[in-house]
């Protein structure tokens, strides 16, 4: 479904990605692991069009999408739930969700709103509240819900557990698994909590200083000595 081949990207003079290649199979959950600054977020930013790759290609369902602007990429079915959530804090929950459907021209947006809210009952209760008034966990739910409003085939998620209490994280991951199963949305997940990510994912990549250093089935990564030592801590 998604094929990233040999991408290079930099922020000004700082090279963030040297050579990243990865593949995501339709319907699966794939995770990208790595320490801070390894290039996980940059990889997602290249895929969603926020960051321009200076070399390499990104193909989505057989079509090349790098060099396309973010709005075109959203319309093609890729939705990015960014690090730090990036909500419109001074807009209501409902307005945030409607913005998620901004590129859509069809009439099913309203029914989708209700359907998405079924996964997040707490958001349905708080539809009229400012997004900024929600708790951290609720904000993360809103960010995911907003990402779903564009009816994506592929959801890019950047650190959904960031800054959340363990119980809240469990809840978020339960929702992610449900969405993947029931909505058949493919998920590319960047996550600090490697244990949790590998328990959910089918396949995993480990990034180090802008390069893929390990790529394997999630189950095998959990057994891998170096991955265990570096990212699982046992």
């Amino acid at each position, binding site marked *: 479904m998604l094929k990233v081949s040999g991408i290079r990207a930099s922020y000004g003079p700082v090279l963030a990605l040297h050579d990243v290649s990865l593949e995501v199979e339709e319907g699966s959950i794939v995770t990208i692991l790595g320490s801070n600054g390894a290039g996980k977020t940059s990889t997602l930013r290249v895929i969603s069009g926020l960051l321009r790759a200076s070399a390499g290609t990104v193909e989505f369902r057989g079509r090349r999408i790098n060099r396309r602007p973010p709005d075109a990429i*959203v319309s093609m079915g890729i939705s990015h739930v*960014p690090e730090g959530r*990036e909500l419109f804090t*001074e807009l209501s929950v409902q307005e945030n969700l409607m*913005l998620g459907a901004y590129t859509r021209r069809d009439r099913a947006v309203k029914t989708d709103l209700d359907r998405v809210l079924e996964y997040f009952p707490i958001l349905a209760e708080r539809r009229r509240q400012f997004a900024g008034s929600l708790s951290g966990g609720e904000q993360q739910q809103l960010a995911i819900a907003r990402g779903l409003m564009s009816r994506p085939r592929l959801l890019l998620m950047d650190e959904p557990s960031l800054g959340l209490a363990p119980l809240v994280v469990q809840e978020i991951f339960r929702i992610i698994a449900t969405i993947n199963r029931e909505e058949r949305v493919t998920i590319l997940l960047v996550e600090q909590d490697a244990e949790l990510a590998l328990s959910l994912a089918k396949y995993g990549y480990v990034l180090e200083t802008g390069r893929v250093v390990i790529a394997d089935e999630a189950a095998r990564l959990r057994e891998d000595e170096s991955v265990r030592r570096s990212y699982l801590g046992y």
Partner: protein
Amino acid sequence: MLTLIMLAPALLANWRTPWDDWSLFGEQVVSGLATGGIYALVALAIVLIYRSTDVVNFAQGEMAMFATFAMWSLVLAGVDTWLVLIIGVALAASMGGFIERVVVRPVESAPALSVVVVTLGLFVFLNSVATWIWAQGELPKTFPTPFGTDSVDLGFARISQHSIGILVVAFVIMGLLYLLFNHTKVGLAMRATAQNPVASRLMGINVGRMLTLGWALSAAVGGLAGMLIAPVTFLHPGFMLGVLLYAFAAAVLGGLDSPPGAIIGGFTIGVVENLFGTYTPSDWLGAEMKLPLTLLVLVIVLVIRPTGLFGQARTRRV
């Protein structure tokens, strides 16, 4: 000090009071509201740009002046006054959009001070070009009102048709802006862009287009205000400067990022300005003192409430 106390009765004796003539008071309040409507529109224009780009556009008044002068040419050519108003708004809008694309966009990521300098440069440029093209011969020029030149007796006061026209147009524009921002998709996208451009791009919003649209909208509102006040102030290259100062005061009074604040600020300043002009004795406080006295009220408000009447203290992530 002592002299001041001794002089006080004499000074106060010269003050007119509303009790002397209530219909004068009514007239001054309503005509203050009318100019206040103009200040409110220009303040709204300033707030629109400030909210979406964090830029205080010092050229706001000169953009309006330029459009008004261009329309004056059409008036001379015999075009209908209402039509002139509509063409003027369209011209101002395209000018605003053009300026955003060509002049402001390149310095978008430059430090705030650079952008301020750019808008000041724009101010000087537009003023000079307008002087060069239009300010020949006798100044100021007259600009026609589309509302008629009679006055209407409202019972408590006689109000000019032009004042009433300004108020009606101001309220209609405010209503339209409210509908645009709160009940349309493009309005929601503009608010989103103003708040979080990165997230807006992720939603698939063309952020650049929203900024252009914001400037166009702002220039249209400002230009309309210019053409509505020109029949009162007359037309010369500096005619929007006073309006701009009051409008800035109104925007700041309202909190600079609050559209309702800008509107209330505009009306307040308009009325305060007019009452100052009417009731301070002209032998020791001339009309020249209207502006500083009005600004003094602003300073006092800001000392008490530094974020303005309706502004929020914004915490920013660094």
